[in-house]
């Protein structure tokens, strides 16, 4: 009797094993999608641990923004499948100095809270630094890490800065999209010491070609801004050389990805450019004043500030490292 049972068992065993393996294969989750899942969760933990919709939007945000309203009305439901949000590409040139990590930290703290934002960080360096590499690995948002050193002859005071780095960001975007139809996207140049409100990103996301808005604390004034009449830019309220074709700061405009791809030769120039003309020389390659789209309530709200961080006083650092540990700052 026993031997019959045993033999039955051993006959069945391989079939049981096969069934188990097949079940395992079937229930295994599908391979992860090729496009990265959004890093950004639309909710942050707010008061008392409750989940609040992100960026309910204060008095500065305009009502009726589709994606934002959706979060408000159904905070727990999965979002309806809607056309994807245009990706915002932030091109940030950065260079090594004592406050670098601090600046990048607070910038990342802002950018993490913006949906569909891709950070393109370009170091003024011959190679990727460990500091920035480690930093980006923990920053918690989608990013691309590039580097290009500024030639020494361009490092004199008075010459425009970050030209090569911004162009590297543009080149990366152009190269990435050369073989595929680009999803809608918007790019802007996010210097690492400025301050950006979250409302600014809502405003720039609907850019069709080139959009503009006021910038606080720049040009020796409380703010500079485009002058707008009947929804069109007609002039510039600026502290410096209002006769420039585009009298606007780097922080005051965004460009749609499509315009960048359609103008493959548009770059920030070195040859023949005067100091202070970087923005103007760039914009005149891709747009006209007539085409500009005014944002921020017809350019009457300040949503970005040209803050500058004081140079750090390191007067008490010894000339040669004396400490026994190496601590990154």
């Amino acid at each position: 009797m026993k031997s019959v049972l045993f033999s039955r068992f051993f006959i069945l065993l391989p079939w049981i094993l096969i069934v188990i393996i097949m079940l395992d294969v079937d229930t295994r989750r599908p391979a992860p999608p090729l496009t990265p899942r959004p890093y950004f969760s639309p909710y942050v933990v707010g008061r008392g641990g409750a989940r609040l919709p992100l960026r309910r939007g204060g008095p500065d945000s305009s009502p009726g923004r589709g994606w934002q309203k959706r979060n408000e009305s159904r905070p727990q439901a999965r979002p309806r499948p809607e056309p994807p949000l245009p990706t915002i590409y932030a091109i940030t040139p950065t260079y090594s100095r004592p406050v670098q990590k601090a600046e990048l930290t607070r910038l990342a703290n802002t950018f993490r809270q913006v949906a569909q934002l891709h950070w393109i960080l370009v170091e003024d360096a011959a190679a990727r630094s460990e500091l920035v590499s480690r930093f980006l690995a923990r920053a918690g948002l989608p990013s691309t890490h590039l580097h290009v050193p500024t030639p020494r002859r361009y490092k004199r005071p008075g010459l425009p800065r970050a030209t090569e780095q911004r162009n590297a960001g543009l080149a990366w975007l152009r190269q990435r999209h050369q073989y595929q139809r680009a999803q809608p996207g918007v790019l802007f140049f996010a210097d690492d010491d400025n301050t950006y409100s979250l409302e600014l990103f809502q405003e720039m996301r609907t850019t069709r070609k080139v959009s503009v808005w006021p910038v606080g604390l720049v040009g020796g004034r409380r703010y500079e801004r485009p002058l707008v009449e009947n929804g069109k830019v007609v002039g510039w309220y600026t502290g410096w050389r209002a006769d420039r074709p585009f009298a606007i700061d780097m922080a005051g405009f965004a460009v749609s990805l499509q315009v960048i791809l359609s103008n493959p030769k548009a770059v920030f120039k070195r040859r023949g450019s005067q100091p202070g003309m970087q923005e103007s020389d760039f914009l005149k390659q891709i747009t006209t004043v007539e085409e500009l789209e005014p944002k921020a309530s017809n350019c009457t709200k300040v949503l970005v500030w040209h803050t500058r961080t004081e140079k750090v006083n390191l007067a008490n650092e010894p000339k040669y490292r004396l400490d026994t540990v190496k601590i990154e700052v």
Partner: protein
Amino acid sequence: SHSQSPEVEGAAGHGLQEQGRLVQKAELVRLSQTLSLVPRLHWLLVEDAEGPTPLVSRLLAASGLLFTHLAVLTPKAQRLREGEPGWVRPRGVEQRNRALDWLRSGGGAVGGEKDPPPAGTRGVVYFADDDNTYSRELFEEMRWTRGVSVWPVGLVGGLRFEGPRVQDGRVVGFHTAWEPNRPFPVDMAGFAVALPLLLAKPSAQFDATAPRGHLESSLLSHLVDPKDLEPRAANCTRVLVWHTRTEKPKMKQEEQLQRQGRGSDPAVEV
């Protein structure tokens, strides 16, 4: 087992007159963005003013954070005079003490949550000046403070960083170059205090007459011995907060225009 402890934090907004502190809104915007990343955080914003200003009230309401809005004016004798460098008088003293008062006995909030945390609430208090830069990780380091916890601060005291020296998990000294004989040579951004400890020592507050650099010590010496400080940030080897300072924006053009009666529209808030 650990239940989440609420974190209470005080931010002393050095809000001087609107014209004198043009970067205020920008600073508070980026501070609020960092604080938005921190779970169970209660922002105590104390204005240097007689009452709440519309700019700050609006900003707090829009921030989505749990907050309490307080205001107390620095007495004239303590105020910076025109042209005096910032370090001459200790700043934010009355404002920080106002926050401590509110935590201990409530009353006087001009916006936000009016009632302080009930007695027995587990929490920690941190003085977060609005021009510093804070990483998210810093707040998790301080959250479980039992007495007073400490960590390095970047870019302060003329050094890359200042911080406690730690051996076998205890603070045995301080890496600092400026006035190393201070009882607690730590920056305001370099420590946090458990809420129950502050409530147990109701007279512990900042002393406005403390000599330059001794403001932190004037509070901490009421609360703890240096040897009992709790080191954080991997035994004080990681810099998670930086003493950044924002440049005063140049307003040469603005001043020119104002003299001509053509200043920027004051209705546009900056």
